[in-house]
């Protein structure tokens, strides 16, 4: 399966008659990290869930790695790692049991070593025997990130990945994302926290009222992005 990790044209989606996406065009190539900014309700989570094949577009075309999303075989999901607003982890299982379960679903070879590596990366060794229900918000978020990285996906979709993380975990995540990007993995992040996301971004985009209203390749001055953001949201751009 070749082709760009993401090629979306005119994605439209409404919920109960309320339009959430109103024609999103987005191409993400291998080695790119697109950071999506936008106010609440702009459609960021809906777009990410669509890219994760959890929602179907109402109108528009979406292809992942050159495969039409509407006819995507289950194997295509092995190339995608998704972190949502919730952890997607079972609260009555431990971190190791959750990762072990997902490793079986994704057919991860050498799962035990990979799980140990990720638990160490997430700093959860000391808590590995406790159920997730007993974890703090930050620990759950680190486990959610470990879960998404478990099978070595080519496309990472991260919805507010820095939420709940302390400075050390933010640095570890930035380093991990930088290494993955350098290795050719593609990623799309949504965030309200430009300062933390900017170091890993190759492109910044602002989603507003269901459309990409502004985009800029390469590094951008935070003040310039903030000015663009204000202009877009206030309707001046």
């Amino acid at each position: 399966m070749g082709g760009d990790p993401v090629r979306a044209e005119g994605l439209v989606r409404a919920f109960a008659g309320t339009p959430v996406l109103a024609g999103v065009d987005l191409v993400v190539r291998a080695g790119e990290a697109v950071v999506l900014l936008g106010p609440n309700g702009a459609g960021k989570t809906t777009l990410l869930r669509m890219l994760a094949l959890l929602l179907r577009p109402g109108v528009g075309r979406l292809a992942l790695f050159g495969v039409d999303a509407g006819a995507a075989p289950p194997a295509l999901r092995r190339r995608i790692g998704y972190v949502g607003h919730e952890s997607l982890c079972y609260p009555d299982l431990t971190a190791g049991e959750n990762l072990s379960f997902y490793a079986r679903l994704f057919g991860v070879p050498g799962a035990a070593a990979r799980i140990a590596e990720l638990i160490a990366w997430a700093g959860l060794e000391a808590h590995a025997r406790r159920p997730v229900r007993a974890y703090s918000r930050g620990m759950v978020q680190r486990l959610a990130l470990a879960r998404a990285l478990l099978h070595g996906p080519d496309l990472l979709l991260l919805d507010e990945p820095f939420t709940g993380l302390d400075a050390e975990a933010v640095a570890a995540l930035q380093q991990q994302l930088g290494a993955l990007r350098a290795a050719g993995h593609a990623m799309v992040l949504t965030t309200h926290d430009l300062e933390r996301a900017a170091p890993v971004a190759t492109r910044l985009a602002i989603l507003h009222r269901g459309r990409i209203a502004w985009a800029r390749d390469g590094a951008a001055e935070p003040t310039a992005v903030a000015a663009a953001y204000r202009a877009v949201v206030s309707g001046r751009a």
Partner: protein
Amino acid sequence: MRGALAILAKDLRIEWRTRESLASVFVLGVLLLIVLAVAHDPTPEAAPALVPAVMWVSFVFTGIVGIQRGFLLERENDCLAGLLSAPLDPADIYAGKLAANVVLLAVTQAVVVPLAGIFLHADLWPVLPGLLVVLLLGNVGFAALATLFGALAARTRARETLMPVLLLPLLVPLLIGAVQATQAVLAGGLGAAREAVAVLVAFDVIFAVAGWLLFAYVVRD
């Protein structure tokens, strides 16, 4: 199949750890047995005739409670999205949840059936092999339909009321077949229950295949 087995093992592990479904299902099942036995207050001679109805009423209500709980697991922390984001055919998710529900119902039956025998003065031991066949067929048919509707109801706000409303009318043929088969087995062994068993087999096949085919439409957006 790998995914279905992983889901089965995960559900059983969670149930073993929390015992939330089993505890509520046991209490409800035993309570129903006692209430129905006391309400009818049958003579020892007449009591065994009540066994099929009492047993299956207990299974239906306890089964609904147990299967609803199975899908609440997937709602918490949006775990269903975790399953749907994995490289699995949704039919594998159905198979895994169905197998877990069959095991849960079988454990419930293992408690309720001997108690029904004791409360209703019925000697079930001589007809146990035939009874096990009927219980298993009824269990699979119930779980096949309830797993499908449990997934559907779990996505709605009114899930506690929606599932019984959708499920119970469709269960009528299964319940008629199960009660008749149990009556026939108690009276004359499995050979006497051929027609009712055929109804159960047909129900199981139809709804297991329907669940297998339709599950993707129920859980996917």
